[in-house]
């Protein structure tokens, strides 16, 4: 029971922290220079990893779906089905997992170190609010960068599917692409983009919150990084389920 109480307390604190920082963004705004600097640090440096991951996620899904379709002689639908699955569900989740380790853990470790070495306290003692000058720009940059990386990664999953299909699965690239519009509707793209945004927000808020709240020594920074990785992964799965469930329910309601 105390664990559940602690968990609820942490969720409440995370929510209040996120609300406060997002509120600061809308009230005070953010300088373009700071935003670009932060986005370069967290976004551009993760681009290669995301691109490689995106291509391979697309390739893996194409191979797996091809195994099922081959038995029914329906390989011509490979492009549509694999792209739809990738964009709606597995693509955002797998790339978000990667980013939570790459970007989330980095930010959490950086902020945790700043917290335990009195860097955040020193900022307070200069009459500045660390939430406004350190956390908010990072959170905004993390969210936007993660979102853009996810969208980029999703685009590349299609590319990965095309490459593996033409090289290994004997599916012509044109044939692969021609069935995409049949299976990938506007709502599929919307769901993919919505999930990407929510995952970006989750990675940004959790890594900043956990890093900011770090106390103690180097061991605690290690714990914060582990906590960020675990909590982000679990949250991504839960949000993925919730979005899929809500969208499916709403779609069925509209259809009936």
């Amino acid at each position, binding site marked *: 029971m105390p664990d559940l109480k602690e968990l609820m307390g942490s969720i409440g604190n995370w929510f209040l922290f996120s609300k406060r920082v997002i509120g600061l963004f809308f009230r005070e705004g953010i300088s373009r220079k700071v935003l670009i600097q932060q986005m370069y640090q967290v976004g551009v440096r993760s681009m290669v990893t995301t691109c490689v991951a995106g291509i391979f996620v697309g390739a893996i899904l194409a191979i797996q779906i091809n195994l099922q379709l081959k038995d029914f002689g329906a390989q011509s639908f490979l492009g549509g089905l694999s792209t739809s699955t990738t964009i709606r569900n597995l693509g955002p989740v797998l790339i978000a997992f990667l980013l939570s380790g790459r970007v989330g853990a980095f930010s959490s470790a950086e902020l945790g*170190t700043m917290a335990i070495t009195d*860097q955040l*306290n020193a900022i307070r003692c200069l*009459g500045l609010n660390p939430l406004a000058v350190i956390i908010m720009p990072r959170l905004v940059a993390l969210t936007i960068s993660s979102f853009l990386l996810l969208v980029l990664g999703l685009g590349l999953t299609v590319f990965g599917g095309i490459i593996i299909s033409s090289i290994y699965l004997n599916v012509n690239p044109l044939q692969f692409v021609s069935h995409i519009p049949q299976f990938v509707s506007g709502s599929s793209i919307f769901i993919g983009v919505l999930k990407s945004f929510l995952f970006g927000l989750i990675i940004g808020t959790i890594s900043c919150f956990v890093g900011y709240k770090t106390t103690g020594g180097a061991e605690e920074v290690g714990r914060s990084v582990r906590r960020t990785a675990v909590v982000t992964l679990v949250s991504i799965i839960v949000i993925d389920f919730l979005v899929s469930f809500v969208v499916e329910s709403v779609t069925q309601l509209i259809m009936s």
Partner: protein
Amino acid sequence: MLELKSITKKFANKVVLNSVNLRLQRSQILFVLGRSGVGKSVLLKTIVGLIPQDRGEVWINGEKTDPLNEEKMVTVRQKCGLVFQMPALLDSLTLQENLEFGLEGNQKSGLRKYLDWVQLSEGVLSRYPSEVSFGTQKKVSVVRTLLREPQFILFDEPTTGLDPVSREVTNQMIRNVVKESETGCVVVSHDIQSAIELANSIMLLDEGRVVFEGTPEAFRNSDQGLIRSFCKGMVVLDA
């Protein structure tokens, strides 16, 4: 005026500060002495609200502070700056960027003067904290606070880890701060020599309580055992 009224702070069951009172006018220097772990740094962090007190009040220029109100404390910290024992510079910024972090345009005008006070050349400012010595980082952290021109500055062991020359530069800088800006300074230190030379008054903390408060002369002439053992180190230095 900076005033502390009956400040009490406990960590677990240990009383770190026990009804501590303090009054400091502008242009005055108060040295807070005491053995390691008696709560000197906690006292400074309590003044600026980084560690909220359990009981008692902190008043700055007739206004009572509220350590639980983070937004109000921002204004308090603009009036009362704290220079940490460790330099606490932002690793990802150059020394110049550290100095200019969050500064308004007109606050940068004193930069050259303050760099002169701590005998730091402008050439070094393009480097990152990890590329310069501890002493240089410490000087930059002092200038970072001076640029904000607070009415009170709290120094946490400003001469610890510095060579004798840098120690004298730091002492001269504190004299300049008080003389030119009429700033009030609270200096937490183990450096008895500096305390005798600079302080208008000295406070000695032991087991959370103030066991002595008075002028450097009275401190030096006191026959309290703890003060005598503190002064022994100074006698050796004199010799």
